[in-house]
């Protein structure tokens, strides 16, 4: 198990390194214009461009440029020349809001995704299954900005059931909670629909496995067969998806939700940076997001190993 973890960790670091090189190349080498000009912003003076060139080492070789830039990003010294704030600090400030949004939404989407998928699968073809299928498709089809607008309009503006003014810190738990309910729902609905469909089809596959028949033949109750033998073996694709999706949203991918609900998290910052073409910020956010995706994929690998001993023991079944 330890060897497995070390292998995965080394792999994750290698992937992150590769991503940082890719991000560097995309932002600095691929575009034809002067990178210092882009970093300095739209209304930069020639002196500013000159100082950016020096600070970022654009007069040096590419490996040196890479090294200088990564040092700036990872030591927290990048400043946005648009808004004159330290980018790393700004991202760190956004983490509590983004984490609150994403963890809460993830709990909702996992719980309901698994519940609906399970109910759909054990009643496959019946009324419950059909109703849940329709609901899932509706959930998948609703764009987040639309759903968020509708929720805000009816529940916050019309009947004033939920407050509207953005994110409240956790120091006041009740405020924190009520301000996050609508964002959680908006972010989770798509995934609930998606996960329930994936789990349903995965469970229907597993139900036809020989070992499920064995489990029934030894006299286990229907519920036990379904939970211990079918559900557990069906969770692997769901966990794969979860690692990718959760890594993406917590790394700043919940851009629309954060923007619609005025939550000043990493996603909101990303949206601003994109709007202003603030290249240092976009670069930092891209690496930040990649870090979380890689991190959660590593967790997924560990979860696999926990769920399937064949992976844990490093051997393949015949």
């Amino acid at each position, binding site marked *: 198990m330890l060897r497995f973890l070390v292998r995965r960790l080394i792999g994750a670091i290698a992937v992150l390194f590769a991503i940082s090189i890719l991000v560097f190349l995309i932002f600095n080498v691929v575009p034809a214009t002067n990178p210092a000009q882009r970093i300095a912003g739209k209304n930069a003076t020639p002196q500013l461009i000159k100082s950016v060139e020096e600070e970022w080492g654009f007069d040096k070789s590419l490996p040196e440029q890479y090294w200088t830039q990564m040092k700036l990003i990872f030591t927290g010294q990048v400043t946005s020349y648009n808004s004159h704030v330290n980018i790393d600090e700004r991202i760190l400030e956004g983490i509590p809001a983004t984490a609150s949004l994403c963890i809460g939404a993830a709990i909702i989407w996992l719980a309901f995704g698994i519940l609906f998928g399970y109910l759909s699968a054990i009643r496959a073809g019946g009324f419950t299954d059909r109703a849940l299928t329709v609901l899932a498709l509706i959930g998948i089809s609703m764009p987040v900005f639309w759903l968020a607008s509708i929720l805000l309009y009816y529940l916050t503006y019309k009947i004033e059931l939920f407050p509207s003014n953005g994110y409240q810190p956790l120091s006041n738990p009740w405020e924190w909670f009520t301000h996050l309910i609508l964002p959680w729902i908006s972010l989770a609905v798509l995934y609930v629909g998606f996960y329930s469909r994936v789990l349903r089809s995965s469970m229907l596959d597993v139900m036809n496995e*020989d070992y499920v028949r064995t489990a029934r033949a*030894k006299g286990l109750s229907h519920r036990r067969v379904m939970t211990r033998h079918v559900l557990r073996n069906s969770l692997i694709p769901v966990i794969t998806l979860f690692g990718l999706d959760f890594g993406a949203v917590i790394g700043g991918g919940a851009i629309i939700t954060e923007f619609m609900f005025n939550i000043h998290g990493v996603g909101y910052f990303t949206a601003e940076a994109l709007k202003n073409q603030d290249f240092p910020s976009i670069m930092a956010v891209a690496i930040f997001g990649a870090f979380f995706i890689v991190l959660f994929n590593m967790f997924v690998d560990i979860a696999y190993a926990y769920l399937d001993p064949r992976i844990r023991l490093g051997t393949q079944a015949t």
Partner: protein
Amino acid sequence: MSGPLLEVDGLRVGFATEDGRVQAVDGVDFRLEAGEVLAIVGESGSGKSVTAQTIIGLTRSPNTFVEGSVKLNGEELTTQTEAQLQDVRGSKIAMIFQDPMTSFNPVYSIGRQMVEAIRAHDRSIDKKAAHRRAAELLDAVGIPDADRRVDDYPHEFSGGMRQRAMIAMGLALEPSVLIADEPTTALDVTIQAQILDLIQDLNRSRGLATILITHDLGVVAEVADRVLVMYGGKVVERGSLDDIFYDPQHPYTWGLLGSLTRLDQPRPHRLPQISGAPPSLLNLPTGCAFRPRCPHEFGKCGEVPGLEARLADSPEHRDRCWLTPEQKRAMRQIEGRIGLEEPA
């Protein structure tokens, strides 16, 4: 106790499919006494596995139609509720399956799956005791170093060991009937022999009544007391092992026997085979289901023959073929390749 241990009467199993109703099993009767080995023989789709699974209610679904009766110690099983049947499965009738590779859940250890089986029927046994019992059972079926290997995962066992473990799991609650659905099909020949020895051993030492489902007459010859030959959902011949091997009455049985390799005869250029393919259950021929493939078909075969005793001296040997015993003997002589000597 009087009466047979397991009694199956007029069992019919149909499935509703998109193309219409499929009568997978169409009238199967048999009795199984304690300590007996009954072999059910037939090709894929002959209804042998469905028969076995229906006995313990594994085929139940809204699209399944079961008629007839299955009695265990005189108690009717087909009308029991699912919860009542769960008590029977595993504890009174155990079942093992064809492919030991896929019949264990890959994510739990062998021991844990055995403990689950034991505790499903007897909650009073604590986990430790059940675990000890699992190790003992593995030892009893010949798994070396069972104390340690009980915690292995299925993928760490070889195919033969997995099938032994399946049998051990089946025996955990000392059932009176073991249904083995092609237990040796997925194993190589030397392992097959070991598994058959094991089944026979348990059958003798514990008086475990066994239903052995197979398409391999070589397997049947080794362990069975009585044989049921199925074709197209019907029993086409039944009798004792000697009846079937030395005086087979149904041309389908001849075909099965004829396609065996034999060590006591010159090697044929190519193994004989029954021409054609098993019939689709959706579209069975009228009359005798074997008619389209039978070289001896004649006018009367358009009517369904009953399962009757046609030999004066052995009332338990029955078959579904319109030919007279004399005609059958003559034809077997001509076919030659079946080469059946009279029992010594």
